[in-house]
């Protein structure tokens, strides 16, 4: 089994998840394994405000967030010039064939399941920073 070992790669990550405690757990892991700077937003407004201010290298977006349409959020994120080419991943406990996931997946670069595989998670960040060749 592959093991995600700590490597200093830095990078900035934005996690959008209504359950802040869960997002913070993932933030701890990314910070510990990659020295990443991780920001957490719990709704669309916060996510957009942070996205405008930050230069994120990777964005993770939960599917079910109260009062927030994740599809609309992803469209708005994609409209930001500096996020046009940035990988956005669906971050969910739902299966890819669930009705709510498919339209979001169409706007995103892939899906990272909850609980995340640390290898998959760090590979997504490494690829965002240095391209697929390093994964």
């Amino acid at each position: 089994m592959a093991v995600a070992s700590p490597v200093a790669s830095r990078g900035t990550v934005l996690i959008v998840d209504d359950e802040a405690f869960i997002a913070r757990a993932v933030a701890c892991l990314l910070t510990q394994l990659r020295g990443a700077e991780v920001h957490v937003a719990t709704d669309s407004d916060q996510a957009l405000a942070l996205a405008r201010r930050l230069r994120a290298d990777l964005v993770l977006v939960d599917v079910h967030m109260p009062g927030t349409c994740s599809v609309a959020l992803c469209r708005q994120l994609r409209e930001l010039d500096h996020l046009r080419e940035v990988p956005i991943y669906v971050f969910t406990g739902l299966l890819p064939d669930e009705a709510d996931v498919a339209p979001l997946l169409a706007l995103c670069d892939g899906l990272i399941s909850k609980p995340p595989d640390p290898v998959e998670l760090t590979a997504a960040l490494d690829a965002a920073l240095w391209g697929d060749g390093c994964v």
Partner: protein
Amino acid sequence: MKTIPPNTENASGDPWRQLAVQAAHDARSPLTAICTYAECLAWLPPQDLTTRERYARAVVCEAQRLGRMLADYLVVLGQCPPENAVTLEPVALVRDVLAGLRETLELRGQSLGPVRGQDCPALHWPAGRLRQLLQAAFDCLLTRTSDGQSLGVELAAEYSECLAITLRVEGGAVLRPAVPTLHQQACEHLLAGEGGWLRELLPPLAGLKLTLPLTAASARGDTLPRPERIAS
């Protein structure tokens, strides 16, 4: 024995399948915290004892939440073991349940407000069921409560033979989840099964109000219908 139909196109509207999907989805939140903090622990320098202890506490608290979630899943499936009713002092019981959740709240940067309730009538309820009902209601709110907010509880007699327990998020409202969580469904089930009901405090979800009959339906020998959503 109840069986869940296989995952077919026609089964997408099936309530049992929806429940199984909902349970799997909800369980992934505590699982995410457990797996992620466990992974963090593995890579943490051994000398960092403070962080080590915080991560370990988070793993324990989320494992306990996962356990409560499994119990809630069984309730929604209708698997409640028979239990005799006993006389309970509601304020003491609420304080006891909250004491068990204090660490979970602290780790989330949340706090407990006061438990207010004077001259509350005693309840004649199955103790385990009432405890699970209160835990499910608190779990329902704490996952939606932001950092810095606190949870206050108020108990008061309502109508002639009921007790209202109001759980209020202080310092701001929380949003209603897009889909009722397993905790909320268990709450509705446990209440409906004993002749009580649940209301969300608006706007948009500033808390939950549980209205309980002073004597549970099971203690009176009554059998009540299950909530519409699951019984369909």
